[in-house]
């Protein structure tokens, strides 16, 4: 194996090396375990930077799949399953997001996870390999394996280190996702056997799937992805999973795992089934729009901070879906950027919520209030992250949401949304107002107003609320930096994805014209 010609293999499986290393460290030496896991995840991050930027192996101006690693793998009974990894502009940012969020999450568990540290870290690194695998796999079968593989560590992360109803939440998460995946597996097998290959780029090139069959395959894939996203009304597992998951689990769940769904749409559904995609576009847009409005409205009525953020994810990912199915460069690029933004902003929100939860052990709004005075740094960082989440211009959320809505409006005018037209974009823009309502409500209830009873409650236990320490600031600082960077100067991010996005969108502008 030459890591210089196949660096994605190194990147994807490097965390497994960390797992091996962790196995040799006794469970009692918690700090050694933490440092090892952190070091491994940081090295993974450095490797990802090296692979895409420093090594010169990746050409960002090339729209095609690059860094290809392709070997025959399982070739029996006419099945042609390959070990096939590659990356392009659609996945590179998500890969980087994964490698960035993992060390951050690990650092955030420093004091939060005291039980079974070894197992926790092992699961975490396994999860990283799984997620990276999903983003780089270009063989449907290999993709499916990674896809299911991510479930297992997450199941245990929720089920072992979660809150009081963790078993229920973990099981629901697992069953829900499995249920969707089974349909996808059938579709994958159909595609692989009919097409003679499981390779995604090859299948896309072959094309020629009859429209009515495309439709069914599209639905089968969409079932798996829509549950993962989650699209309304399949979101019921998300609040449970988020509320019960430990902080780091929530961060990864919101930051990366949900993106597996949206990524699946853009990587498989849209290019593999172009005709079905065009047919489905307004329907998906409808669900996305309902999700945006519904998620925002329901968020406002929550009394639990984590639940509020969980429902806000439903709303935010509605934007992503709306942008993806606008099928023009603005919508697609905005959606991909919004995936990153959501990972950063919501990840940071969960981190911050975890930090306050560690001190107060409650997530109920009604006991909070006036925290800004006691915790000015925390309050300010929380404000920045909240504003980013509600899409304040100059911060990252705006760039994504704006381009998405712009793209959706264009799709409404150009006829991609062949019914509904611009109404999807117009109604979704209402979500901008509603986001302001629930985000500001959350900020007000926590940080403004008279001092909440939680302050005295904490004092009763002999502590007093402290502001963030340096470790916590270090955890959150990279995300804050990215929030400003993407908001003010998103050009490097757009440049990375633009060639691939344009290529994908081009196929649709032509196809759309041919159909109408």
């Amino acid at each position, binding site marked *: 194996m030459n890591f210089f010609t196949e660096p994605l293999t190194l990147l994807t499986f490097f965390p497994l090396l960390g797992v091996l290393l962790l196995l040799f460290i006794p469970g009692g030496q918690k700090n050694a375990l933490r440092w090892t896991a952190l070091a491994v995840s940081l090295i993974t991050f450095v490797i990802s930077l090296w692979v895409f930027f420093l090594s010169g192996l990746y050409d960002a101006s090339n729209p095609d799949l690059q860094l290809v690693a392709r070997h025959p793998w399982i070739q029996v009974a006419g099945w042609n399953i390959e070990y096939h990894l590659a990356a392009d502009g659609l996945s590179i940012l998500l890969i980087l997001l994964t490698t960035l969020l993992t060390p951050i999450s690990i650092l955030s568990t420093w004091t939060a996870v005291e039980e079974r540290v070894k197992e926790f870290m092992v699961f975490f690194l396994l999860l990283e390999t799984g997620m990276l695998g999903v983003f780089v796999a270009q063989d449907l079968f290999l993709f499916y394996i990674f896809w299911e593989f991510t479930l297992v560590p997450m199941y245990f992360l929720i089920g072992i280190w979660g809150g009081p109803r963790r078993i229920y939440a973990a099981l629901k998460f697992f069953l829900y996702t499995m249920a969707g995946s089974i349909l996808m597996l059938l579709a994958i097998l159909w595609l692989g056997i009919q097409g003679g290959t499981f390779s995604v780029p090859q299948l896309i090139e072959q094309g020629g799937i009859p429209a009515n069959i495309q439709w069914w395959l599209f639905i089968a894939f969409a079932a798996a992805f829509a549950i993962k996203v989650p699209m309304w009304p399949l979101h*019921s597992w998300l609040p449970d999973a988020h509320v019960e998951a430990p902080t780091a689990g929530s961060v990864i769940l919101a930051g990366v795992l949900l993106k597996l769904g949206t990524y699946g749409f853009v990587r498989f559904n849209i290019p593999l089934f172009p005709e079905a995609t065009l047919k489905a576009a307004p329907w998906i847009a409808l669900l996305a729009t309902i999700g945006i409005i519904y998620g925002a409205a329901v968020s406002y*009525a929550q009394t639990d901070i984590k639940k509020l953020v969980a429902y806000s994810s439903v709303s935010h990912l509605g934007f992503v879906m709306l942008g993806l199915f606008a099928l023009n460069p603005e919508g697609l690029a905005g959606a991909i950027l919004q995936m990153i933004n959501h990972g950063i902003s919501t990840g940071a929100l969960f981190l911050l919520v975890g930090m306050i939860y560690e001190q107060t052990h409650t997530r109920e709004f009604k006991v909070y209030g006036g925290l800004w005075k006691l915790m000015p740094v925390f309050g300010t960082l929380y404000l920045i992250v909240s504003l980013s989440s509600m899409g304040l211009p100059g911060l990252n959320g705006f760039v994504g949401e704006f381009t998405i809505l712009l793209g959706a409006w264009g799709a409404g005018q150009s006829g991609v949304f062949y019914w509904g037209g611009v109404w999807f974009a117009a109604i979704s823009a209402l979500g901008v*107002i509603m986001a302001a309502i629930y985000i500001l409500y959350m900020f007000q209830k926590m*940080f403004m107003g008279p001092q909440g009873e939680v302050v005295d409650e904490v004092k009763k236990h002999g502590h007093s609320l402290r502001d963030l320490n340096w470790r916590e600031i270090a955890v959150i600082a990279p995300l804050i930096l990215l929030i400003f960077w993407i908001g*003010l100067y998103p050009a490097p991010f757009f440049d990375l994805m633009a060639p691939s996005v344009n290529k994908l969108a081009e196929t649709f502008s032509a196809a759309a014209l041919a159909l109408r």
Partner: protein
Amino acid sequence: MHLSETISSGFLFLAPWLVFLPLIGLLVNIVFGGRMSENLVGGIASAFSGAAFAVSVLLAYSVSLAHGETLRWTLAEWIHIGDVSLDWTFRADSLSTTMMLVVSGVGTLIHIYAIGYMHEDVRFKNDPARFRRFFVFLNLFIAAMMILVSGDSYLMLFVGWEGVGLCSFLLIGFWYEMDTLARPSWSNSKAAVKAFVANRVGDFGFLIASFIMFWAFGSFQFDAVFAKAPEIQTGVILAITLFFLVGVAGKSAQIPLYVWLPDAMAGPTPVSALIHAATMVTAGVYLVTRSAPLYSSVPEAQNIVALVGAVTALFAATIAVGQYDIKKVLAYSTISQLGFMVAAVGMGAYVAGMFHLVTHAFFKALLFLAAGSVILGMERGHHHLAHGHGGHHGETFDPGDMRNMGGLRKTMPVTFWVYMIGTLALAGIAPFAGFWSKDEILLDASHHSQAVYWLLTIAAFCTAFYMGRQIWMVFFGEARHEAAAHAEESPKVMTVPLMILAALSLLGGALNLPFDGFHNLGHWLGHTLGEVEALGLNLQVAGISTALALLAILISWLIYGRKPLAKNQSDPLESFGLLFKGMNRKWWVDELYQFLVITPYVKISHFLADVIDWRFWHDWFHETVLLGAYNWASAIGLNVYADQKGIDAFANWLGAATQRLSAATRKVQNGFVRSYALSVFLGVVVILGYLLLKP
């Protein structure tokens, strides 16, 4: 010629520093402010704001050297994807430099004033550590406002547009843990959220307008849009302009979104002066003026804008009459004056609107700051009392309530005189600044639409009346509260900016006198907006408005001045009954919105969250239907085969079959190592036998 071009482009590179300078100021204060004295913190903030003013002057100079050419300076790329190409481009032309000068000039004066004001304010509220935060926010506001006025595209304008909204939120909620009377309460923070949300409703309109614009014009850049405007259907432009109007209504506090502005008075008084009177709220007027080529091409939109402005002007003026709080009066007055401006730009009288914007920035900032001085004077008096008489703390004292004041002209002479100047300017008495600008608007209205003209004229009458009422109640008569009797004049750091603003309010009319050769502002803005025929002084219009203003002041003297209010005496206007009550209760608009919008929204979202999402979808559908169906199916399955009931569904349904299968095979798995070994051995023998017997 060549020399001037060199110079102008030589200064142009400073354009981004309009934003950077205040940002540097706030960073310095964030990083080092904790160890610096209050004066230094305030001084640094003021200095960087002043530096932004200097840059504005240089830019304006560059523009004038370039004979009003539009100058651009691109700092960096912003959003480039698909057909979108947006840059961080700064724009200097006569319109934007005018706004820059007003914002940074008035802003700097208010910064200086705030050093003195906040020094006392943070002590009255027992949190001196918050002094620094105020100036950080104030500098942030200047930076955001500069982005708003200097952006070269609608989207960059929007960045500033929302940025100032954020600063407004932060500063209204500056004392987030109390109400305006410093009691622990949610009310200040509620006002802050209300302001932001109302602004966001407006931003929604702005967003929609920008979407339509992009797909029709293919650009967000001002000149590109204007150049293409003649080719576009008027229906599209009408939609764009009307959606922009929604944004204007949010930001410039017009009907129906004005409700946040009165509540915004929860912020410290310099904030009310800077953001909620002089600069931010005029952003809507700036937007309409900036989009002049669009509005001018659709008269329908212009009529609607003018009507909204005029109705707002009168509506808010009536409410101002019924207020007791000194700042609330000024707040409604601001809404009313913004109505004047919006009406003016709606009628296409962009110069008049901008002229009024400038003069209003002077005299309304002056009035607010002077009101702040009055409030602090009352606080000082009250503080003095509390210490003198050993504890007055039981009662809540409202230093902003005009019924507590009276006779302050003796104790606060400087404040009194500048307040008088501001009042006369606002009431529109010649030769104060407000007279000239308001008269120009009225004159345009008389040419344009009688309805708008009369609405505005009546509003002007009300304006003079409520300002007269205020002057008599606050400064004349006898003190109606001991705090007023012991009020003290403010220090120099506050009064000097007041005096400068008073001078500007007095002389600001000189910018654009209605005489030939004096239309300075008109010519200046003409570079950007196109030359318009300057109107002269119309004696009829001027005469009517002046006479009405004088009449209003006379009436107010008859009611409040001739026989001053005594202690605990109720307002004579209360004899008007429901009419006054309506004015005092703001025509119940807040209650109406509560009933029509807020309560339904809260109810719907709770219904969706609790009933639909949780009880129906999460609990009933998932727990009862899905899980129940599963349990039921597995119970049926078990009944048939094993006649077992009520055991855990999952284990049974899947397990029962497995169990029977395993029951047969479990005998093999007996746990005895030897028997396992035997089976291996058996395997060996059998395989060997097979190999041997194989043919």
